[in-house]
């Protein structure tokens, strides 16, 4: 335990302490001021946040109905789908992005890299792939906690069609699980480097790398800030998870 704490926190404290030493002889937040004043910081964080939100929307729309349908009608396919969702963990991002570039380059049938907007689209889809293991697992766990089949059939017998069942009955009952998946997705997307860099998009990950290569104190400040963002996401998962515990328990 103590070893673990030291292993994680000593480098972090070292980085934090280093980030405060921008001005010789005194501790100051000068490095943070410079980072926050840099227009590229704001621009890349905004860009990555927008892409993260889009990734969450696409991911949720893709994963929730899929996981629901597999649980309800195709339980035999569950191992296959679990395997597919795990693939992004074993296939390196660089392999994925080279695959994308080969299939969607500007001289291909579907030239997604032809313009900035369509490249953004491609980046969103690649982020959805990267976040798939986390999003799928979160949603699947949420669905297993409720009696999907009975709830669906109860709603059907009361006259509800599929959209009504999905949005009024299933979705609200896996809200917490979806939110966990969403925050994990956000944390992954905000610091992602490989995809954004190779697709040449102005995301926060490549900006971190650029600063790291050219500056001394600012990268440490940035590292602390991105840790802060990730931890905030984790904290929010905890907050929402606890808030709805009673509701999920009520499903049993």
């Amino acid at each position, binding site marked *: 335990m103590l070893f673990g704490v030291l292993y994680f926190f000593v480098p972090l404290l070292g980085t934090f302490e280093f980030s405060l030493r921008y001005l010789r002889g005194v501790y100051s937040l000068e490095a943070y001021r410079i980072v926050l004043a840099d227009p590229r910081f704001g621009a890349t964080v905004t860009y990555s946040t927008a892409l993260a939100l889009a990734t969450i929307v696409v991911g949720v729309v893709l994963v929730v109905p899929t996981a629901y349908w597999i649980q309800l009608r195709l339980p035999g396919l569950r191992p296959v789908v679990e395997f597919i969702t795990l693939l992004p963990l074993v296939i390196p991002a660089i392999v994925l992005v080279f695959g994308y570039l080969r299939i969607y380059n500007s001289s291909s049938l579907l030239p997604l890299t032809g313009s900035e907007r369509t490249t953004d689209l491609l980046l969103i889809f690649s982020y959805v792939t990267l976040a798939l293991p986390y999003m799928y697992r979160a949603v699947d766990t949420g669905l297993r906690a*409720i*009696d999907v089949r*009975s*709830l669906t*059939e*109860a*709603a*059907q*017998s*009361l*006259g*509800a*069609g599929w959209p*009504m069942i999905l949005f009024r*009955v299933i979705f*609200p*009952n896996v*809200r917490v699980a979806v939110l966990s998946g969403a925050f994990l997705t956000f944390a992954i997307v905000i610091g992602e480097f490989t995809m954004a860099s190779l697709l040449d998009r102005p995301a926060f990950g490549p900006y971190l790398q650029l600063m790291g290569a050219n500056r001394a104190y600012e990268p440490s400040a940035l590292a602390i800030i991105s840790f802060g963002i990730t931890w905030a996401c984790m904290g929010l998962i905890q907050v929402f998870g606890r808030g709805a515990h*009673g*509701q*999920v*328990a*009520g*499903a049993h």
Partner: protein
Amino acid sequence: MAFLEIENLQKKFAQTTAVEHVQLEVTRGEFVSFLGPSGCGKTTTLRIIAGFEAPSSGAIRLDGVDITHRPPHQRHVGMVFQSYALFPNMTVAQNVGFGLKVAKKPAALIKQRVEEMLNLIKLPALGNRYPHQLSGGQQQRVALARALAIQPQVLLLDEPLSALDAKIRVALRQEIRTIQRELGITTIYVTHDQEEALSLSDRIVIMSEGRVEQIGTPFEIYNFPRTSFVASFVGTLNILRGQVADPARGKIVIDGQEVIASRGLKDARVGEVCSVALRPEIVSLGEAAGDGNRMQGTVEDVNFLGSIVRVRVRFKDNAISLDLFNNPSLSLPQRGQAVTVSFPREAVLALETASSM
């Protein structure tokens, strides 16, 4: 005229046949129970009526309309599940009003109907609670109210009381019957609990291995079981094996003692091994007046069950259980005591012989 008609229904899953040639006509306002052990096809039949399963063949007609291929949300059939299946994200009132909201009824009408339903299930003050704040019995009442709120043509209940404890089960089943009578709603009730089926139903459908064994009133099913399965599944039963001595007179020899059955042996042959059934409550201890059957045996066991005392008497290979009503002045027989038991001729039910099954 039949309100709900189930015609030659069949359901096959890969290698197994879950439901085989089920045929049933239910009149309007009737309470029919499907009773049978696990895996007998009762729930599958109910799910086909609800539209959750498609039959392999056969048809279902509701009020003269063929609904066999209609999706569940267009059948106007109310369903109550064993697991309650209340929507955890909605309050009791929202749960009860869900079907009406789906049907786009005006808010005022929904409010009024929800109040009516909550009064019907005697939980008028719990509209704002969430399902997890209710007991199991309360949750199942809300599920019943939710199913009834849409004024369905048929109410289907799939083992609704199985998850509840014994006292609540008895209270709630009476409540279900009272509400059903009050509303006059045609009801199909699936259960594996014979007491539930016997006490609630107008008619019972006994199922085994996907087939209907017998359809009849609780009285008919209990007193005149048509097959050995029905006889053994419903109520406690003594099965005695003997040899046919005189088919015309209904005479059988059981462990060397003569017994007369008033019917059911006409087609049997002399010397054939046959089984007869006897309900424990029809057998009395000691000599009875008249020309009933008498057998001599030894008391093997005496079990005190509260309102009744069950005495087991052994002849030779066969044994018989009989029930005595408990009262404080009852003198109980001792184990090993020689006794005479008697029972009327018409109480001896000849079951199908192995060769005729």
